[in-house]
């Protein structure tokens, strides 16, 4: 957890952070005024903690790597192809899937806020919502990629997709070498969240489990 490695030169207490207190205060008010059902909140949190997340997107990618006809549908009618695997809903109503190739690398950002394809990737990571990523992804995408440990040759065109409207983007990463004959489940294990945002690459079998 962030903060676990902080300097221990202050007294520990049980007082939560300012942000946590603010959220608590807001939640109490919303519940007291009858605007929010706390049980509905619990179901919402459980949904995005345990049911909807990047493993959904990994299944979509693994299917596309395994089935050329599915891949063709995914790239032409992204939302419909994703719905074939049962992943639909809020913030995934209008999906576009962009394919990484030997000559093109795609990367997704929302410079205006934090738009993100929830049904396939879950809720966005903190860095995706933070100003440094949002401002630098469009200005210096290769620098951002380097921060994520990805260096691309100049021959590869980097395309940054700024999801300013209602379309939500999923990157179809390149299938790693050395994966011939792997099952969809084995392939899905190589697909990271970041590889579907475009800030990372899919894992190769030898690095499987290293992150």
């Amino acid at each position: 957890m962030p903060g676990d490695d902080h300097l221990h030169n202050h007294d520990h207490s049980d007082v939560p952070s300012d942000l946590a207190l603010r959220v608590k205060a807001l939640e109490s008010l919303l519940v007291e005024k009858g605007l929010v059902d706390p049980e509905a909140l619990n179901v919402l949190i459980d949904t995005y903690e345990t049911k909807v997340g990047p493993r959904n997107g990994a299944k979509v990618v693994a299917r596309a790597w395994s089935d050329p006809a599915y891949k063709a549908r995914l790239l032409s009618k992204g939302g419909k192809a994703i719905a074939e695997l049962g992943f639909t809903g809020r913030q995934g109503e209008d999906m576009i899937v962009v394919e990484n190739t030997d000559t093109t690398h795609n990367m997704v950002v929302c410079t205006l806020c934090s738009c993100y394809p929830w049904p396939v990737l879950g809720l966005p990571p903190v860095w995706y919502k933070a100003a440094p990523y949002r401002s630098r992804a469009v200005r210096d995408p290769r620098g951002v990629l380097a921060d994520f440990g990805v260096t691309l040759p100049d021959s590869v065109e980097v395309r940054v997709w700024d999801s300013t409207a209602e379309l939500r983007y999923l990157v179809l990463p390149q299938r790693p070498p050395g994966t011939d004959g792997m099952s969809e489940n084995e392939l899905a294990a190589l697909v990271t969240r970041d590889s579907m945002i475009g800030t990372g690459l899919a894992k190769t079998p030898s690095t499987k489990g290293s992150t």
Partner: protein
Amino acid sequence: MLKAADVEQTLRKGGSARVDDDVAPKFKPGQRVVARNLNPLGHTRVPRYIRGRSGTVDRDHGVFVFPDTNAAGTGKSPQHVYSVRFEASEVWGAETGAKDAIYIDLWDDYLDPV
């Protein structure tokens, strides 16, 4: 108020801003366009860094509710949204990533023909 029993169905259903209105597109893929230099006081989805820059319409996404008027409560103003490709060099200067590009989704009312 959203009840616990309705959460799953509500999330699954979603709420698309795409509409069926029969609205003619103002632009077509391949066409050169310039993002208008708009600075409204209210809500808008045209990023500041792209205002006044030229690009090429990559694809037409179809017809969507226009957020500027919708947020202001003055109507849905349905219109086409396009993915517009802006060369990195056009936005950030000639020395920047000559091959690279930014694709931005923009509504009809954010664009003028070049």
